[in-house]
């Protein structure tokens, strides 16, 4: 079971992700609403896994991913973004993301991605 940082600009999505992670026995240790908060929270919390939205205000998810990977090259990050943004998959993987979950999703898909990232 992992300590997870959940990053999404929508409180609704943070709740949905948190519920999905909790159903798999994971612990949400922090939440962030944009990329800047995500980087700061990562530095502070050093979670075992981070879920990261792409389209966010102030700093988008791909920029935040690059900064997190610069801080911790071993960071485990799962990208989570809307249908139609699959073109970001390759860019995310190049930057170091472990997996990509497309919204809307089933909780099982989130847990599968988390398990894969933690393996």
């Amino acid at each position, binding site marked *: 079971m992992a300590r997870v940082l959940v990053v999404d600009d*929508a409180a*609704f999505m943070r*709740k949905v992700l948190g519920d999905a992670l909790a159903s798999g026995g994971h612990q949400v240790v922090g939440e962030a609403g944009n990329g800047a908060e995500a980087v700061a929270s990562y530095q502070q919390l050093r979670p075992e896994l981070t879920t990261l939205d792409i*389209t966010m205000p102030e700093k988008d998810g791909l920029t935040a991913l690059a900064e997190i990977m610069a801080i911790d090259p071993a960071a485990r990050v799962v990208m989570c*973004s809307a249908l139609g943004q699959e073109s970001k998959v390759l860019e995310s993987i190049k930057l170091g993301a472990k997996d990509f979950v497309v919204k*809307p999703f089933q909780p099982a898909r989130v847990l599968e991605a988390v398990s894969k990232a933690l393996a």
Partner: protein
Amino acid sequence: MSQNAVTPREALTRLGASTAEAIAQVLEMFVPGEVQRGEVSVLPDGTTPFTNLPFGAVATSVSYVDGVTGANIFLMTPVGARALASAMGVAPPVPGDGTASEAAPQELSELELSAIGEAANQMMAAAANATSVVLGQEVEISPPETRILDDPDSAVEIYGRAPHSTSTTFVISGEACRLIQLVPSAFVVRMARAIDELSMEQPASGEGNQAGSAGDGWGKRNDHDAGSISLHEALSDINLRVWAELGRTRMPLGQALELPLGAVVDLDRASDAAVDLFVNGLRFGQGHLLVTDDGEWAICLETVAGTVPTTPHGVRALALENQMKGSD
């Protein structure tokens, strides 16, 4: 431009139609069987699309931020917004539990507004993807912003005016909603050019097809000269890229670069296995390869988007040259 160049009105209609189609598909995931699409109306240039805006309308806006400009505003009644949020798993606030305003218990909670914003985000991401297919260029969107609008003037003040606009109606769980698209002239020109380049031979027929005149601000409009055509009509003559895929394999870049002429590359499929048929990048179905009497390849479809075709022989054959006629 060619003699048959797409007009701005046709480009706007197709933009509205492709956007509406993408939005309806996402909405259908949230509220299965409860979504009805209405017509796409291209509003007269320079008019405000916010007329007849009911008090307390819930507006979620998403803008294009890269590649193209323009705004998309999804308008819902408070009842419709609550129904959508509820379908997404957010219960209405209960007076006295801290989630509802005692002064106005009917107000949407923060979590309801967040859910509606997320729905708009997913809808417009899908719509941007559809637009990017037409433009041949990636289109990115901004994070959604959700507001409560009290009157048309405040809507104009917030969203501004655009030279062109479209209005598309939806009904979600019995509540009428409206998508407004504010479209800059440069975007229209690019859309028209892109559609031309997709070899569209017959412009949509929408002239003289008037929108309803008994507008109530949601399901119908009052604009007497707003042209509208059905989504099916708007989309039916768009040419798509269609191709078949025999199989795949993976190899390191170095190995690929060193492949000699005559090399045999094993694919991941048996020779008698079904091949995939792709339409504009989406896997559309599967079937078996045939050779026609003219000596051309064809594919005999066996499944289409997870279903089995119901033609007399259970299959439908599509002739393929390396790509189908009309593709590029």
